């Protein structure tokens, strides 16, 4: 029940784009048409769902203070948390590589549609951000990490698809002032949608 609540909260209230602005660079670059936006959204959801539980396990059993006790009681006062940034980014970069190879081998159709986006994901701040939030908020189990990861991913997917749909229409039908065309109006659309998403604040199941 708690995990379900966290899942819903991660999608709507703690939305990666509208509440924390993570992954904005690729968000702005790719949200020009719905199809590619959806592809990138799926890729991000997938990576967040995989990397968050892995990084959770690493954080709990290797990195945080006293986590190495399971190896030997002498390690009780070892704190490796200063290494967490490097470990997290290494996990993300190598998982991206791994997933890219696996998808290429077993699902060529999916690879053809996601192809160009997969390598970009290693440097998408939403993925690393998810892991850092996981560490900061002291999640209590792998399930919690999994639910939060999936929720943040789906929230990101929702955001980029919605904004891409609006941008497509705006580019076709409206007369935007010249200096605001392209990126400027994309910022304003995202801001207005962010304000709309704030109405989900305090949602509880």
């Amino acid at each position, binding site marked *: 029940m708690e995990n379900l609540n966290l899942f819903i909260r991660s999608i709507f209230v703690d939305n990666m784009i509208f509440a924390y602005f993570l992954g904005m660079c690729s968000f702005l670059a790719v949200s020009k048409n719905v199809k590619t936006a959806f592809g990138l959204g799926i890729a991000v959801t997938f990576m967040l769902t995989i990397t968050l539980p892995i990084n959770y396990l690493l954080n709990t059993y290797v990195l945080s203070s006293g986590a190495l006790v399971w190896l030997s009681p002498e390690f009780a006062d070892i704190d490796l948390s200063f290494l967490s940034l490097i470990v997290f980014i290494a996990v993300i970069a190598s998982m991206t590589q791994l997933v890219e190879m696996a998808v290429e081998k077993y699902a060529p159709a999916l690879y053809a549609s996601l192809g160009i986006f997969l390598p970009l994901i290693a440097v998408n701040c939403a993925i690393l951000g998810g892991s850092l939030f996981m560490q900061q908020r002291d999640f209590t189990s792998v399930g919690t990490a999994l639910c939060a990861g999936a929720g943040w991913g789906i929230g990101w997917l929702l955001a980029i698809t919605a904004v891409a749909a609006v941008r497509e229409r705006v580019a076709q039908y409206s007369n935007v002032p010249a200096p605001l065309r392209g990126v400027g109006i994309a910022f*304003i659309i995202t801001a207005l949608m962010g304000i709309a998403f704030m109405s989900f604040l305090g949602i509880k199941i």
Partner: protein
Amino acid sequence: MSNKNVFFNPFSKSNPVLVQILGICSVLAVTAKLEPAIVMGLSVIAVLAFSNVIISLIRNTIPTNIRIIVQLVVVAGLVVIVSQLLEAYAYDVSKQLSVFIGLIITNCILMGRLEAFAMANRPWPSFLDGVGNGIGYSIILVITGFFRELLGSGTLLGYQVIPQCLYDAGYVNNGLMILPPMALIVVACIIWAQRSYNKDLQENQ
């Protein structure tokens, strides 16, 4: 391109935030107050300049296939140093910046500059390019932080700027400015101003 252009172009003509649209996440997320914005700007200048120099020094020995991982590791190492320094000497600010110091690793400005400049240039121009782009980024950060703190809380760097008599006369702080979506609107206004001045940057879609 002369060293002077390398250093000064990023201030306006090829500004990393406004023109290259890189590193948006942190511009939006840390600018609710001026102080964290300044600290964030300084951290990015330091990391960008030194990672540019390091990558430029070893650029001829990096195998092309794994260059992204090498770049990420160099950047992650520098970011760990910066975040430990901040925790030691500016604990309050590092608390406010929370995960966003760690997210410098995936700040697209870094990967963008390393790929586009440091991999192909000698150390000294790379250093200038790093500092120049870092300053270009910080300018936007500071402008956004200035307006958001001034209009949102009536203070600058924590000092009361708007006099009490104005409040007595019925002036109220605009609470909306502190909320995340307004950062997007402020940046959109900066883009608007810069592009109406620099006509050749306008997009025509």
